[in-house]
């Protein structure tokens, strides 16, 4: 009968796949062993383990670094892999959003897959540090970074600065009618329905905007450290604002005029402008513009600590960060790389005054704020 052959075919495929999966994961369970011994013992066992692992995987004979990042889009990932290869590093990039990457690192704490993580902003790094996912290391270039950016305990160090610039689309909003700052948007009825109020609080951008608003209402007696006025303001901000529909980009509705006032991210701006042909006009609130720093850190429990350190030393150096800035229109935190910054970035940052936010206070409370927003304000 015909079915017989098929039945066995399926049985066989099933078994085969199970076996293949089993074989593949041998590599990772070797990791576990490796971690334990590497922590306790010398480097020789470590190398042996990795050798056996790479032998079972056919891709490469060198030691491979696993790098988690959220900054791999638009060709960045490919560029970094290529440059690293030229510098003698064999890396594999695992891309995930900031929140996803953070959750993943925390859940893998006991059996880390990643060696290095970079690109997340300092709020995520604070969380990772608190969860004891990172191991401290002071890179060679640590002193070249703008002051106040690096973690004083050397858990993470800055790479790229992002300014979250409140902007409007001059095709739809006159300069005279433009708002002054986030509070203006919330308090002034005439902006109702034309500005973006991002409610995707899993994303770093939305969180920073929330922090930027709430930090102005710090009140030790208020709920979660914020005064009642602060809560009322942010409630109004979200009530009058336009939420970005699921699956759409903030720049799309900014460009189309559906919500022509919104927050631009300095590092993405050049690509967006080119894609949509819309040039935003920037606003410079008195209180300042919130800035976040994308940083780099080494994951605690990596089997290739030395290699990871070498990679961090290389990647954060003025040379590499300068090249990256030139290639992708970014603003490096490394002061010595700033001569390679594009005019476009220079222009953005020229007028931007950093908002003075007490990040320790924010990091401590942001999760509770988000929870309150999700539950009571939305």
């Amino acid at each position, binding site marked *: 009968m015909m079915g017989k052959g098929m039945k066995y075919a399926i049985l066989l495929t099933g078994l085969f796949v199970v076996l293949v999966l089993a074989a593949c994961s041998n590599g990772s369970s070797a990791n*576990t062993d490796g971690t334990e011994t590497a922590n306790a013992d010398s480097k020789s066992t470590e190398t042996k383990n990795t050798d056996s692992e790479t032998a079972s995987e056919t891709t490469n004979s060198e030691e491979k670094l696993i790098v988690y990042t959220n900054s791999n889009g638009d060709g960045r990932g490919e560029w970094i892999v290529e440059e690293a290869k030229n510098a003698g590093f064999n890396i594999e990039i695992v891309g995930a959003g900031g929140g996803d990457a953070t959750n993943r690192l925390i859940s893998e704490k006991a059996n880390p897959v990643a060696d290095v993580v970079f690109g997340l902003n300092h709020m995520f790094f604070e969380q990772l540090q608190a969860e004891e996912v990172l191991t401290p290391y002071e890179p060679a270039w640590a002193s070249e970074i703008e002051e106040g950016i690096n973690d004083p305990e050397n858990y993470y160090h800055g790479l790229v600065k992002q300014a979250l610039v409140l902007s409007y689309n001059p095709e739809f909003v006159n300069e005279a009618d433009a708002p002054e700052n986030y509070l203006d948007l919330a308090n002034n009825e005439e902006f109702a329905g034309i500005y973006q109020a991002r409610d995707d609080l899993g994303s770093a951008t939305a969180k920073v905007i929330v922090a930027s608003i709430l930090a102005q209402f710090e009140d030790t007696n208020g709920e979660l450290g914020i005064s009642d006025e602060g809560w009322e303001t942010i409630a109004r901000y979200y009530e009058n604002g336009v939420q970005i529909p699921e699956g759409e980009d903030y720049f799309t509705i900014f460009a189309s005029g559906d919500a022509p006032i919104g927050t631009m991210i300095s590092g993405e701006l050049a690509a967006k402008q080119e894609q949509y042909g819309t040039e935003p006009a920037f606003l410079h609130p008195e209180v300042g513009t919130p800035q976040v720093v994308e940083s780099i850190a080494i994951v605690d429990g990596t089997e290739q600590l030395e290699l990871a350190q070498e990679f961090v030393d290389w990647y954060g150096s003025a040379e590499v960060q300068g090249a990256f800035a030139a290639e992708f229109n970014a603003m490096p935190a490394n002061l010595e790389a700033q001569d390679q910054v594009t005019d476009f970035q220079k222009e953005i940052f020229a007028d931007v005054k950093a908002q003075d936010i007490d990040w320790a206070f924010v990091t401590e409370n942001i999760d509770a704020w988000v929870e309150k927003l999700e539950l009571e304000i939305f």
Partner: protein
Amino acid sequence: MDTLKNRWNKWNPVTILLSFFIIWFVFAFLVFPNVNTIYETFFGTGTFSLEPVEKLLRSDRAVQSVLNSILLAIILVFTVNIVGISLVLFTNYFDIKGASILKLSYFSTLVYGGVALNLGYKLVYGKNSPLTDFLTQINPNWDGNWFSGLFAVGFVMTFACTSNHMLFLSSALRNVDYQTIEAAKNLGASQITILKNVVLPTLKPTLFALTIITFLTGLSATSAPLVFGGKEFETITPMILTFANSSSSKDLATVLALVLGIVTIIVLTFMLRSEQKGNYISISKTKTTLVKQKINNKTVNILVHIIAYILFIIYTMPVLAIIIYSFTDAMAISSGFITWDSFTIDNYLLTFSSLEAVRPYLISLGYGFAGSFLVVAFCLLCAYLMKKYNNRLTRTLDFMLMIPWFLPSTLIAVGLTVTFNTNQWVVLNQVFTGTLWLLLIGYIIVNIPFTLRITKSTFFGINQEIEDAAKNLGANAFYTFIKVLLPIILPSIMGIYSLNFIGILPDYDLTVFLYHPLYEPLGITIMNATGNSASADTKALNLVYTVILVILNTMILTAVYGNLRFRKRKKV
């Protein structure tokens, strides 16, 4: 002799070993992680605390979401059953012209679901779709965002959730003894009376099962409310997702999930009780095959044809839209407006610009094959034991295996990662987080309840005498199972196998928590390629991925069902 044999069976070392394996598996992967999560929620600080519950009760949004989910589930029970029954009648019971083409479109929900399906409906009914443009043209006051809220979610899910009807209700209908229909006709019953009093009551047990599944689907709806619900219609699962992603709010996610679980348990208990009342035993020994009924009343006949073809259009448009738009440029996709110049194959070239693009497919295929194979094997084993030994232990097992139905997959995933990221004695101090196994275990777990229900009902449908006959002829239990029982249940088993497989391929909700970062499955790739962070023509890529998935799934289904149909014909 008989008692002797039974005693021997009871002490069969293989059975004991397998039983211990099942008990261990259920405890280690179904009970332990979830209890662990729940314990952490209420005793996380060391003392029992109801703070998360209070927090949620204070939130209008949370309470409203729970109510919305229940409302959606109730609405879907009615709409999905109405549409589902209609589809099955149109394709299997009434003599409708062009039924084979209708069938093809009605089956389309089997080959694409979740995110892809929503994308299809968005292309057809969304803001920039040709349909909306047309509506605004005839009525300038027409709201471009008309397709949102409860109506839109209900609409999309009504047509999206009929796959199980098409599969299981159709086969139940085919099992109706045609002589009963003839008898009713002979006794003077009209066509509508026959349908209402003879045919539908026979389908009642299947309809009960489908109703439960529909209710659960509605309760835990994720992607449709996210895409079409908007602010005015939020449901509970997206909220759970949000909270589950934030480490400090995981307790809220757990509590919300528990609410879902409790509602589910209540509904299940209620339904199971009324299911027992509605049960019947088929008594016909010689069944005659169903002959399609021509509708005698001309007006009704025309009306039924019209409805059948309206459904055809509703089912076909989203698939067609996905396929057509996947061949157009970004401009056409975002504006909805297609000209001759819009057509291009660049999207496909872009997707497959490198060999790397094939890797996620292979990984997901691997997980699909292995995952559904293992879950089917596991459920077969459980069902077999349950049939053989109906005692308190197996009844408890039956209930335990339903746990994944009580909890949303997101929470199961969180439970797994949180529990197995440290050494656990229950799995011999292995750490599963960061290995390939975790995702495989996850896929197995979430597919257990449905698979078990199907395998169980198939198993219990086999005449005991057949098994006895094989044993009487000298076959041992294993041989009997492989040579006699398995071939009988194979059609259902293959059906559920391919359904699981198709479900695993594009999964995101569960996968994102559990996958090994170096082995990225398809769902993750699609999400990364289409998420907000990527600025390229993400929608076009999504469409291409969807089309390829549709082709893959169609191939799998035709392989399975085409083959079985062939078998059947040979048997006759």
